[in-house]
């Protein structure tokens, strides 16, 4: 069975078998290459016109189709591509081999392409494996997407190898009839011909572009996943971290296991995306289904391990906290604020200066609480004067059950703070400077807020706060960006539109 194509030569329409057409097309291309002069279009037109004439004489009246033998006959009559060369010097046999000399032209290789065949074409031209060209392009993609732009430009300006003559030129083989026939025997021309008709559909190109985007994206993702174990390994020594003093015996999972499962958790989705991208580029790739299945199993396993460890750590933390319950002394202090009627109290938060002198690691004996451990409240004064109260919870280990604590591998430091307040604040005329954190001992495992500061002002006095410090006033409705507040007639604190009434 043979597919027939319809062609128009010199204004005449013929039906021609596809293989015969391919051969004729290659022949004309080869002739064109042999002529290589200014008026080649005109000459080719004349030749085509003659071919049309010869076809018209030879066409099978029964079928009306031009066959391979017709084309062979025509090529016999017309002569080899070499025969078209006219020499000014009548006898120059050496030059006669001119077309046998190979010369290379750069083409896009449509058959071995991934996107537009640019890389495989460059590979042919420089005689290197296109894989290296592709790797170079992918690497250059990370240089601000440089190769993406270059690729698009090359895609546009480099022609695609369509005919057998193109393919020969691309590979640097001489374009002559014997080579063309060889290519035909190898069936090369058919695959290239099919590319011309079917392979370049828009859907295919989009599919490949999506594939490449997936691959680039997932490679970056996999690369990024390597940082997760590094991150939690460095977290291990950070005092604020969940993993501080991670105890293998407690969970049964070694720390490297935890790191690994975190890595798998992050990387597997990207690996699956990578496989998907590869599959889009090359639909022949097999086994992606079950590979993804296995990866999925490890993914679920790692999620399970990670959740198990995290839940365990939380339970442990709760247990420790319950052991500490009640082991606090509450210290109170009351200070008058030097405010006159209608004065404004300026509240400023400051980093505790001691934070720079105390080492924030396991080796230090003390740590800073988190910022949300400091809790500020503004209340209305009944005494007609402004004052403040500081209430501080101080860890006290006198009633600790040391035996149950040892189960958790917790060493109790004997160091105690003095009975004075650990919370730092200062009052300078109408400005109250509060520390945004408090020093506690390392043994303080509780999550409760450590310091409550109650500020009492009268109904005529204002407070001024910095908009960023709103978070310290937990149960009070302060407005974003509004700085001045006073009590209204209902006893609720209210902003005064950044002005003092």
């Amino acid at each position, binding site marked *: 069975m043979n597919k027939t194509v319809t062609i128009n*030569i*010199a*204004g*005449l329409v013929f039906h021609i078998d596809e293989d015969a057409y391919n051969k004729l097309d290659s022949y004309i291309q080869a*002739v064109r290459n042999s*002529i290589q*002069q200014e*008026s080649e279009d*005109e*000459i080719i037109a*004349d*030749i085509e*016109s*003659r071919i*049309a*004439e010869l076809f*018209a004489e030879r066409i099978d009246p029964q079928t009306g189709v031009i066959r391979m033998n017709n084309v062979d006959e025509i090529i*016999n*009559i*017309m*002569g*080899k*591509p070499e*025969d*078209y*060369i*006219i*020499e000014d010097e*009548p*006898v*120059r*046999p050496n030059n*006669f081999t001119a077309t046998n000399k190979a010369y290379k032209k750069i083409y896009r290789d449509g058959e071995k392409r991934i996107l537009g065949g640019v890389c495989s074409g460059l590979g042919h031209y420089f005689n290197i494996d296109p894989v290296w060209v592709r790797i170079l392009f992918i690497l250059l993609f990370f240089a601000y997407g440089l190769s993406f732009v270059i690729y698009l430009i090359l895609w546009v300006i480099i022609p695609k190898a369509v005919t057998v003559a193109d393919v020969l030129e691309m590979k640097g083989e001489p374009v002559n009839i014997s080579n063309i026939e060889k290519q035909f025997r190898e069936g090369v021309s058919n695959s290239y011909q099919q590319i011309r008709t079917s392979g370049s559909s828009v859907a295919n190109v989009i599919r490949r572009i999506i594939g490449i985007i997936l691959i680039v994206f997932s490679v970056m993702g996999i690369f990024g996943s390597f940082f997760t174990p590094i991150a939690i390994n460095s977290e291990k020594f950070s005092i604020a971290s969940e993993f501080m003093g991670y105890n293998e015996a407690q969970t049964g999972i070694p720390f490297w296991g935890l790191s690994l499962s975190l890595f798998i958790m992050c990387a597997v989705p990207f690996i699956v995306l990578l496989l998907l991208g590869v599959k889009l580029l090359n639909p022949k790739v097999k086994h992606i289904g079950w590979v993804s299945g296995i990866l999925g199993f490890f993914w679920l396993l790692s999620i399970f391990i990670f959740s198990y460890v995290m839940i365990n750590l939380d339970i442990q933390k709760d247990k420790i906290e319950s052991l500490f319950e009640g082991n606090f002394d509450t210290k109170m202090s009351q200070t008058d604020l030097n405010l006159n009627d209608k004065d404004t109290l300026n509240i400023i938060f400051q980093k505790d200066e001691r934070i720079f002198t105390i080492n924030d690691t396991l080796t230090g004996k003390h740590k800073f609480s988190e910022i949300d451990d400091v809790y500020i409240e503004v209340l209305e004064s009944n005494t007609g004067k402004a004052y403040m109260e500081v209430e501080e919870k101080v860890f006290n280990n006198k009633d600790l059950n040391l035996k149950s604590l040892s189960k958790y591998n917790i060493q109790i430091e004997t160091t105690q703070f003095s009975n004075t307040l650990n919370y730092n604040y200062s009052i300078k005329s109408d400005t109250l400077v509060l520390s945004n954190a408090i020093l506690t001992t390392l043994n303080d495992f509780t999550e409760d807020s450590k310091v409550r500061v109650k500020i009492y002002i009268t109904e005529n006095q204002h407070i001024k706060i910095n908009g960023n410090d709103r978070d310290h006033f937990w149960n009070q409705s302060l407005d974003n960006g509004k700085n001045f507040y006073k009590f209204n007639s209902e006893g609720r604190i209210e902003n005064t539109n950044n002005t003092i009434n």
Partner: protein
Amino acid sequence: MNIENTKAQMRKGILEFCILSVLKDKDCYTSEILDTLKEAKLLVVEGTVYPLLTRLKNDELLSYRWEESTSGPPRKYYRLTELGNDFLKELTVTWRELSEAVNIITNKNSHE
């Protein structure tokens, strides 16, 4: 040296002269020129002629006109220009001299 190549080159050398000669008395379209040349066994393959015709036309030795054909594509009818005519006359003289010279040499050699 390839004998076929030498033969082809010899033919190519006088091909221009012969094309002009075919067109001396009447205008011909391409296939007629080809048929005449093939009949005389001067031409083995047709391919050689097309670049030659175009060159002769570009050198203004030939001109052409299109004519419709009932059996095929429109035909290019070539005719000699004045320049072509002069060129042909000169070539004819040269050819006579040449063929005489070649005859003398080859005959003389065959007698010996």
